[in-house]
């Protein structure tokens, strides 16, 4: 199941709301004095519905996820309940989680890579369970935080299951640290403002995904999916810029929906995107893009490896190699990761030292050029297609422009405008302007509320209509 699906929106969510509210009523009625059971009924509703959510798309691999949680639960207890073998238990835990990821995500990749070297190894053809990269990483972060004594161990299996499997962030993040929500498992309260914010955030995410990302995917497919030999220069740029916008709205939209739903439940997930296309360097870009993944690798890999204290360049390359590899079991993702790793390293000794002397517009252009080129590496898993594409990008192709690129400009005109504007912090800007123009607080609140209501209803109705017409609606990042 995915969020941008009519069944999820109009069957799953209402059913969940009813059961969750019933659970809340039961919890309040029982008024359990045991602090670990104050949210028992509603947490059970959340766990059950998360199970249904995941099993809906993965009826067999849901048990893999359960086994993964069980293994982490036992190992977490082993780490916490004794001192002598804490590290050994952690290592076992890491092996289990990385092993699961390695087998189910990378076995085919390893086999195919070995085949390239001449070894006769058959590909195991193991299907990739949805969300495995996210829930294994959350499990790893839990074990390490318990090992470092930064978070308390979870003694109740059901509560650990809730943390790892809760449906708002199960299959496409953000990667939520256990410490962020540990207290909220048994002590959380969603105020009226939280619920309103959560609904609004969810609808913003839905609009980003359905209204923007899905239409941008039609645009990028027009140029990049087939017939690359006839790709013009303009077509290659149009296609990859469309993909640049598509992947942002697709992924950040999903994060918005996850954060919004979490907020409605009383969980405050950290932000995962901060207008990444406003970056002034690639270093800055990676502080704004998929923040939860970047901070995971920083805290659990880069710093333990030595960070900037010892062999920093090697540490950076290892982190970026694995960042690329996390995104997909294909060499282009690894190259993509190393591409950014090298740029980050070079920037550290060059651009970042003189950044303040360079006008922002040039920094933005420089950054966006490198980001867009990066997406070109990310998009094509087949190397010959990638080469053809980059040839077109640099002008080594038959035509500068063609009918397809000329018509795409007009046929998607407002989509281009909306996507570019909405990738900027436009709502903050509007809020600032409104504060300046309408000093009267209650009047301003009235305008803002009215605008939010109209905007939210419009997004809901338009998204529903577009979902009716959608044929292929998967999130890009669910394949991870």
């Amino acid at each position, binding site marked *: 199941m995915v969020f941008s699906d009519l069944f999820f929106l109009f069957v799953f969510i209402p059913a969940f709301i009813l059961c969750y509210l019933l659970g809340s009523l039961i919890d309040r009625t029982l008024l359990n004095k045991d602090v670990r059971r104050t949210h028992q009924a509603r947490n059970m509703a959340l766990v059950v519905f998360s199970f249904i959510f995941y099993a809906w798309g993965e009826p*067999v691999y849901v048990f893999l996820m359960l086994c993964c949680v069980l293994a982490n639960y036992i190992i977490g207890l082993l780490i916490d309940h004794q001192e002598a073998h804490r590290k050994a238990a952690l290592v076992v835990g890491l092996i289990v989680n990385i092993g699961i990821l390695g087998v189910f995500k990378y076995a085919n990749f390893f086999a195919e890579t070995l085949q390239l070297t001449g070894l006769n190894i058959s590909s195991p053809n193991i299907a990739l369970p949805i969300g495995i990269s996210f829930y294994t990483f959350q499990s790893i972060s839990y074990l390490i935080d318990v090992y470092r004594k930064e978070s308390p161990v979870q003694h109740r299996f059901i509560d650990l299951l809730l943390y790892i499997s809760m449906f708002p962030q199960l299959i496409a993040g953000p990667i939520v640290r256990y410490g962020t929500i540990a207290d909220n498992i048994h002590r959380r309260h969603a105020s009226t403002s939280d619920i309103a914010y959560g609904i609004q955030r969810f609808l913003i995410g839905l609009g980003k995904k359905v209204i923007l990302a899905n239409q941008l995917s039609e645009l990028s497919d027009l140029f990049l999916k087939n017939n690359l030999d006839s790709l013009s220069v303009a077509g290659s740029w149009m296609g990859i810029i469309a993909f640049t916008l598509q992947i942002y709205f697709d992924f950040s939209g999903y994060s918005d929906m996850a954060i919004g739903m979490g907020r409605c439940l009383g969980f405050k997930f950290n932000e995962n995107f901060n207008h990444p296309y406003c970056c002034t360097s690639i270093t800055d870009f990676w502080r704004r893009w998929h923040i939860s993944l970047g901070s995971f690798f920083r805290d659990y890999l880069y710093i333990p490896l030595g960070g900037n204290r010892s062999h920093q360049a090697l540490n950076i390359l290892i982190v970026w190699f694995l960042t690329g590899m996390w995104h997909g079991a294909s060499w282009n993702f690894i190259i993509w990761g190393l591409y950014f790793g090298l740029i980050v390293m070079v920037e550290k000794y060059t651009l970042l030292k003189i950044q303040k002397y360079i006008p922002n517009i040039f920094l933005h252009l420089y950054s966006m050029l490198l980001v867009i080129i990066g997406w070109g590496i990310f998009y094509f898993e087949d190397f010959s297609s990638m080469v053809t594409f980059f040839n077109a990008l640099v002008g080594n192709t038959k035509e500068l422009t063609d009918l397809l690129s000329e018509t795409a400009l007009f046929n998607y005109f407002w989509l281009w405008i909306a996507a570019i504007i909405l990738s900027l912090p436009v709502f903050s800007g509007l809020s600032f302007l409104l504060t300046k123009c309408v000093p009267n607080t209650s009047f301003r609140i009235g305008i803002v509320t009215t605008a939010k209501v109209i905007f939210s209803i419009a997004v809901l109705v338009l998204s529903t209509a577009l979902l009716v*017409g959608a044929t292929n609606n998967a999130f890009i990042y669910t394949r991870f």
Partner: protein
Amino acid sequence: MHRKSSLIYIILIAIVFVVIVIVFDTFPRTRLSQLEKRELASFPPFSWESLADGSFTGKVSSWFSDSEPFRDELMTLCMQIKHYIGITPTEDNIKFHAPEPEKPAPKPKKKARKPIDVSEDDHSETDENTLEENAKIANAGIIVVGKGDNVRALMAFGGSATGCTEYAEVANYYKQTFPHVNIYCMVIPTSIAYYCPEKVKRYTNPQLPTIRNVFAHLNPSVRPVNIYFILKKHKSEDIFLRTDHHWAPLGAYYAAQIFAKVAHVPFRNLSHYEQHVVHRYVGSMYGYSKDIALKNAPEDFVYYVPTKVKYTTTYTDYTLNNNYQIAGESKPKEGPFFYKYKDGNGGAYCTMMGGDTRLTQVRTSTRNHRRLIILKDSFGNMLPGYLFYSFEEIHVIDGRYFTQDIVQYVKEHHITDILFANNIFSAYGKSTCNKYRRFIKQPPADSTIVSPVTTSSDSSLITKSLNPETPLTPNRQ
């Protein structure tokens, strides 16, 4: 957010949300889409196997998303939204719509009652046919050109100048099988051959080389019927529908004229026909392309009914299971040849003979001992109506729906002429040709006789709620 404003916000959004939930979850599901001209998904059957492999839950989601109440209205809104994300600065505006991704053939809901074995592997043939036809739709898919009332949808052709030889081979095979019957081969071009703007031509392949290639592979005893140039000559007239993938009845008139010449049979011009019009017709390309510009530019469906000839039409109707295999056939029953559709009805293309899933036999007052079989696809439906002055009998056999042994059939009905009349996409497909070959080999069917069906057959693709108003009374004297 301020608490009071948050509460107002929550209540208003909740009201809208609850309304949508009530509509989607409690209102009757939509079963047929007039817009897309197809039956919508039904609730899948449950099995533990399908639950374990995820197909059951996937199909439940698909069913929910496919058959929602007010689907056509929401689809129209969807298309309006997609239309308004663009601007149309010039009259020669061009839009590309990629071909639909291939959907797997649906599994039958239940075992069909005593299905008639037309072939060993009809299920795969259905897939193969669709796949091949889609393959001949070039990657550019459907191209919508023009603006306002002149907008026209074109299906990009991906065939090559060396392809389509199988179509010629099957015509040769029929000549070999029926040495004393005149065999004719007609390839019907589509609208993109005539209305493609110059700058769009690189996205589609020309059709004339393919047509010539077919004729070049015909045995000398098989007569080619080349209608390409007469259609080109009349392209400024309404010979192709703008909003449908088919040609218009007027285009078929000119084709029939050429055929009559090749066949050396009499032919009457349009002054011997009465013109009828179905106004505000929007055809199949609207559903295929999902481009609202086509809905906003309906056209007149103009057809011609012969007035100075008597004729009776007999139908044998085929019923289909959910896999589009023949599951039963009716006893022959008389009916009208021309069906009348109301203005605005999207099924008006079925005016002639009411659809494809039937064997049609027309007996006319023409007395020249010439008896014709037309082996056709849906394009061929338009031809017979112009040949009542030309043949004593016309037997119209759809390549997808025929259960008899054609050798026996030809003998029994004293057939003198057989015309292959298929559009170039369909002619290109191997499965079309394989079906015609099988007509010769297939044994007489042990058919399940079911109640005579009307054009509102449950399994008919288009006609469920697109029933014609009244049949046009044939001219019987």
